[in-house]
């Protein structure tokens, strides 16, 4: 293992509002992208799936975490993976006529997380 460059998987289990977890994860990702290390995967699980809810509408003077994830993903060509089962239970859906999943987020199975974790040098959970 080349210790100078580490592959990271970030698991986010905190919601888009109410706890600091996902905000902290976002800042960690920013730091990672400005370092020599590699951000291999961003995975939203459990309450973390709320980060993919496009109806999240914070006040003007508050940080818009949903939008921030979208911009980050766009700028660095990252995939925002969201556990489909955990998301559906929380009303975050991607149906043809009725969907509220924010652009840039992708509903996937837990198998993807398993694969990413198996390939990562570091896994950080927020």
């Amino acid at each position, binding site marked *: 293992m080349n210790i100078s460059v580490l592959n990271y998987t970030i698991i986010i289990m905190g919601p888009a509002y109410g706890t600091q977890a996902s905000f902290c994860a976002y800042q960690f990702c920013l730091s990672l992208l400005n370092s020599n290390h590699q951000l291999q995967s961003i995975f939203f*699980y*459990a309450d973390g799936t709320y980060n993919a809810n496009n109806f999240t509408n914070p006040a003007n003077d508050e940080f818009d975490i949903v939008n921030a994830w979208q911009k980050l993903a766009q700028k660095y060509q990252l995939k925002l993976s969201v556990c489909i089962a955990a998301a559906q239970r929380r009303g975050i859906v991607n149906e043809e006529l009725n969907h509220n999943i924010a652009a840039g987020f992708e509903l996937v199975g837990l*198998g993807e*997380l*398993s*694969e990413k974790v198996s390939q990562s040098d570091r*896994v950080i959970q927020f």
Partner: protein
Amino acid sequence: MKKIAIIFDQAPHGNAKGRETLDLVLALSDINQISVFFINEGIFHLLKDQQPDKILMRDYIATFGMLELYDINDIYVCNESLTKYNLATQPLIIDAKPATKQTIASLLVTYDTIIKS
């Protein structure tokens, strides 16, 4: 393949942490080697005869029976937590190895990844 420790540290039914952590255990075991730890209030997952349907919660406790089927046999339960809640002599739903806090701490450093509920 990674060696992963997954920790249950919260009581069942009051929130979805336990249920979704169990889903993680099963899903991540496909290509990784999983060990499971029950500490603090997480040990309440192991009690027999739970009836979560009576409080309108899903009975995911029965799914812990799947661990053996998934070849997940490295299961530990914290001795001090069992004693704290006076459960040391209670029969448990799965064959979890009792371990002291110190043993658990020394085991945890041997994993590639630790995930907590």
